[in-house]
């Protein structure tokens, strides 16, 4: 089946796949050929594409959603970075900054939520880069 990973800055993947593992908000799940039509929200997490050539491509996804229909899987992610393109050192540095930023918003719920999400995205990228 075909898979497309689209982001606001451009398409990240386009091709024939055997399956895709995605981080749904209600839990991770895998999509194989013949899946029922589905629209699902995606959490910040790891996305794994198993290509028709039996390769595994891993992406760090920062939230989004997916539409599965007629053997086409379309993933719209706000951000989808291939694991080999993640600069772990830069992300670690960003993690420190983000943790400091989070500490600043102890009393401000809106700022705290936003800072938390930022930190979650960075941690996810670091985790995925280890793959």
């Amino acid at each position, binding site marked *: 089946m075909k898979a497309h990973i689209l*982001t606001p*800055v*451009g*398409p990240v993947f386009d091709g024939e796949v055997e399956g895709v593992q995605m981080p749904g908000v209600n839990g991770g799940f895998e999509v194989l050929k013949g899946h029922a039509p589905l*629209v*699902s*929200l995606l959490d910040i997490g790891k996305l794994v594409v198993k290509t028709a050539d039996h390769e595994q491509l891993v992406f760090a996804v920062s939230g989004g959603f997916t539409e599965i229909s*007629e053997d086409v899987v379309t993933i719209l992610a706000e951000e989808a970075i291939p694991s080999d393109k993640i600069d772990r050192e830069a992300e670690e540095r960003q993690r420190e900054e983000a943790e400091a930023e989070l500490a600043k918003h102890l009393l401000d719920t*809106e700022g705290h939520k936003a800072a938390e999400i930022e930190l979650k995205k960075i941690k996810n990228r670091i985790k995925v880069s280890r793959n």
Partner: protein
Amino acid sequence: MANLRDIRDRISSVKNTQQITRAMKMVAAARLRKAQDRMNDARPYTHKLDEIIARLTRRTEVDNPLFKSAEKPKNILLLVMGSDRGLCGGFNTNLFRVVEKKIYEDFTEHLEHETLSMICFGKKTHDYFRARKYPVIDHKIGFFDHLKYEHVHEVMNRIIAQFKEDSWDEVYLAYNEFKSVIAQNRKIVKILPVSPDTEKKTVPSHAGEASGNNAAKKDLSDIDYLYEPKPDTILEYLLPLHINIQFWQAALESFAAEQGARMTAMDSATENAGDIISDLQLKYNQARQAAITTEISEIVSGAEALSE
């Protein structure tokens, strides 16, 4: 009669100016190409997002605070996208005039009762509206220098939250749309409240079917989708995303339009400089020949006087 040296200096000065305008044109051309690439990159995402939102909003049981429309809108927020730098022809003034016209046609009362607010993107925008004492509550300078999708969140999330808290009844976005290098379309779009209208498109109409996606031809009501979580929850995520993407697209369009306008303006300037240089060179040659003639006639009359 102009001094030979003066004319020569002027020619040199205009040639320098011409080099600068020519360089500015080429830089703008390169930036325009990149901007167009970015716009094209965003299209598949945007099309798909629109399609899914349309499908969701067709279901009669979904509702969302972002659809809320007031009968008599009181608090209006106007976002205006101009440029940071000048030398881009009528790019800014044409847009600002359209914005002012809109204010005087639709928002005179709001202006009087101080319920109209504006946010200016770009130094030229801020300078214009602040000087004319419009109610500018915030401005972003240098916004277009490092356009990144992440920055959109920073701007729009707060506005969306304020809309939900009823701080705004309507939010408009004014920007230049890139039609071609010589033509920019001025657009004023209402981005909040969102209209639960399935024909709504995020992508400007001139874009055409660039994404190669046959979604528009597929009958959306054919397939019965499972939704996880509930459609209401999904829409809660998708609608702010849709607004963010509208803003992102407008920013890309505005940036591209600015580069196009600057290319055209600098192209004209370069050509004009060329005309001035030709003109001056003509004058220079005439002055040079006149000087030679004067010198010769002085020599001749001097020689004649001696021979008498």
